[in-house]
């Protein structure tokens, strides 16, 4: 029930987003009538959802073919980049957070905190530029831009990973600190279990709900960063397509790209909700 409620909410958002540009843009006055945007809001919404369900966004003005297939062609590239980023970011963030939580206020904790804050404070595209400068231009180890195998994905993924690493590691730290103060941890230690067993088998499972929530948020936010990073690295994903569509004022293509991103975010949220039921049996009966 909760999941369905969540999904419908998420799907309403892009519809509202789409109505805003159409309602204020004079250029699309003519388009407006043909798109049925003079109808009352609920009717528009109904049609919109109906169109959405059929996957009909109209033809791209720029490429003169249906917009949705163009966008869907780009989805795997974005997923590849985002997946690779998360693959790097999540283990690293959890490790940093655990190191930080096990010895609060130690030197290691302070260093991790500052590193995490620096990660959150870095403009991802600037980091991308710096990485290009060092590893592609100066050292010549990796390609500056383009699409391909692992060498191509390393730099954009590194630029994208810094922010989630900062955010997630902070959440891991506070969640672990909360759990480490609880009674069952004392019990586990009293049984003579090693600290590693306590941390990695007892505590981390109980701390994982807020961690997974934050991971979901950050996975969704990756699509934010992907727009900029894909543009910077010439990565043929949905993000760069959206920017190109905006530059060409290609409304159907913009719509298709935004809806596709929204659907991707909904899917991430769905996965997070499903993950809750795996982690915490109480959610299943709640």
């Amino acid at each position, binding site marked *: 029930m909760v999941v369905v409620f969540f999904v419908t909410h*998420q799907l309403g958002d*892009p519809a509202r987003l789409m109505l*805003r*540009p159409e309602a204020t843009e004079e250029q699309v006055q003519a388009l407006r009538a043909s798109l049925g945007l003079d109808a009352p809001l609920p009717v528009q919404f109904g049609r919109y959802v109906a169109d959405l369900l059929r996957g009909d966004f109209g033809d791209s003005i720029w490429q003169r073919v249906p917009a949705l297939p163009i966008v869907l062609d780009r989805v795997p590239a974005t997923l590849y980049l985002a997946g690779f980023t998360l693959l790097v970011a999540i283990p690293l963030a959890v490790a940093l957070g655990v190191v930080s939580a096990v010895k609060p206020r130690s030197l290691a904790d302070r260093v991790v905190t500052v590193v995490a804050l620096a990660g*959150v*404070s*870095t403009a991802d595209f600037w980091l991308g*530029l710096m990485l290009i400068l060092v590893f592609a231009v100066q050292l010549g180890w990796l390609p500056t831009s383009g699409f391909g195998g692992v060498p191509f994905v390393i730099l954009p993924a590194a630029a994208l990973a810094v922010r989630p690493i900062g955010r997630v590691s902070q959440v891991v730290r506070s969640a672990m600190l909360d759990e480490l103060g609880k009674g069952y941890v004392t019990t586990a230690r009293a049984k003579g279990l090693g600290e590693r067993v306590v941390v990695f088998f007892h505590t981390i499972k109980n701390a994982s709900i807020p961690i997974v929530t934050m991971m979901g948020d950050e996975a969704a936010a990756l699509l934010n960063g992907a727009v*900029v990073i894909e543009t910077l690295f010439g990565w043929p994903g949905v993000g760069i397509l959206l920017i190109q569509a905006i530059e060409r004022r290609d409304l159907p293509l913009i719509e298709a790209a935004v809806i596709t991103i929204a659907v991707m975010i909904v899917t991430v949220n769905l996965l997070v909700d499903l993950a809750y039921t795996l982690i915490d049996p109480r959610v299943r009966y709640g």
Partner: protein
Amino acid sequence: MSGLGRLARSAAAGAPTPAAAPLPPRPKGFRLYLRALSSDKLAFAAALFLGLLLVAAVFAGVVAPHDPEAGGLMLRNQPPLTAAQDGGVPYLLGTDQLGRDELSRLLYGARISLAVGVVSVLLSGTFGVLVGLVAGYYRGVVDDVIMRLVDLQMGFPSLLTALVVLYVLGAGVWKVIFVLAVTRWMIYARVSRGLVLSHREDVFVEAAQAMGSSDRRILFRHILPNLLSPILVLATLEVATMILTEASLSFLGLGIRPPQSSWGLMLAEGRGYVTTAWWLVTFPGLAILLTALSLNLLANWARAVTDPVTRWRYLQPKRARAAFDQA
């Protein structure tokens, strides 16, 4: 401070019997924060940096060594520390693709970047807090509608929202500020609503109601002051977010446009010279990083100091803190 007093206080801090030692008088108001700031080196450095940056941005006309618009093709892409031809101040951070002094442009760019960050936070914060107050205090349908809107917008990345809205509005400083405010108001609404919910059942609200205070008086005189410190912490973090988002938007060509300049736009302009002029892409990004990092550090510090549970740590001498950390 006498050695005895310090000893007494460290005993009070280390042992769970605070009644054993008489507590020295606590500093209040501004001096409290000044003292708490001096005990945290990172926060102090952050505050210092932000203060200097603010002064440099406001008085950019006096501080900047060169005219940010004056260039010359002969001076194109000179590396940092190049001597000026007229024997004036050297180009400390080099010159850009039009021969303009990079440092002076950074200082003038700081004006726009900081103004965009601060003004958009003021706008979105004021609106969001008002909405959150109303939603949390009156509950009911108003609350349901507002929070549903908040949930809708929270579900979608704010940079993408900003991109789509700017696509309609076009670029420009005020448009960027407006769009940033529109994309982030719900953060404040959600936080302040949650806080109002926890305060509206408090005894002081009940007392005010019993004395016949109007709703408006209760909201603004009794509840709002209790929200200020968490909201201020949030706003500090948000200024950093806004500066970063503005940089991204300008980099994508949908934010600030020439002749105005911001750090993000400088990065966008320098991007074409990655291979030939590293300083053009390095320094504006460093400025963004240092500013956002300082804001984050300051917010972290402010969160701890405004919370009475954690505040005392920042008012103790070093030794007492060390004793506590080991316990």
